[in-house]
């Protein structure tokens, strides 16, 4: 993976635009889907956006009984194949970070698919708390832009 999410909790104002953008980007027929990004609002910070890390050895993919979670080579995202998913919630339970959600109504797993390489949560973040950056820029902390 050459690009990762960089989350700067100090910049997050917990406005919820990323959650909305995600829900609408993954909706169908005008109905928003479940948001794959969540802001954790109960800590001392205003909010911490939590998003799938696209693990190299992913527990969700290993736990899936039907092999519905597959690596998308183009975007570097682990994607849920909706046709294969049986909604058993094994991936939800196996994810060590709690970043997989169930789509209400459909009862299928939903996880971050990087919006096909252009994450909409990043596009809608007004403060730059989430950025989709090359890996080298993302692993430095504190990064220059946070100060």
């Amino acid at each position: 993976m050459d690009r990762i999410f960089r989350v700067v909790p100090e910049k997050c104002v917990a406005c919820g635009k990323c959650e909305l953008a995600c829900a609408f980007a993954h909706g169908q027929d005008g109905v928003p889907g479940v948001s794959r990004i969540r802001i954790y609002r109960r800590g001392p910070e205003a909010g911490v956006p939590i998003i799938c890390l696209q693990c190299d050895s992913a527990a969700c993919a290993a736990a899936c009984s039907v092999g519905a979670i597959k690596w998308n080579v183009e975007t570097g995202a682990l994607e849920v194949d909706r046709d294969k998913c049986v909604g058993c919630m094994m991936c939800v339970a196996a994810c060590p970070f709690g970043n997989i959600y169930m789509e209400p109504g459909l009862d299928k797993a939903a996880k971050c698919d990087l919006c096909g390489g252009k994450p909409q949560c990043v596009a809608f973040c007004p403060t730059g708390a989430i950025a989709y950056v090359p890996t080298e820029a993302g692993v430095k902390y504190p990064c220059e832009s946070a100060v």
Partner: protein
Amino acid sequence: MTEKITVYQVDHALCIGCHRCFKVCTYQAVSGNPKEKHTIDPARCMACGACFDCPKKAISKVEVEASVRTVEIARVRCECCGALTITTAQADWGSRRKGVNAEAFKLCDECKRRRMVGQARQLMGC
């Protein structure tokens, strides 16, 4: 009128014993050894459809009376908040799976997110 539920069943005339349905069943409803005829126990089948992808199309849906489902469904409780997550049968199956950390089954997704934020806070030293 009795309540009906859907379960899956194996057509023994078509089953070649490839063992695929056994491997994918997270509820341990499928019994049978490789190269023998497999059977789905309707008492345990939760009709998730994971086994339906049969190379010989031997698995079909049937409607049965709800009373055949006699298995008691025990679910895992989150150690932190007490929310119900997967069933204990699924947790058993998942912990034997390669690449899955059974520790993750102990918490619900909400509590896991909270723990993730806590760990990040420690790493950043604030």
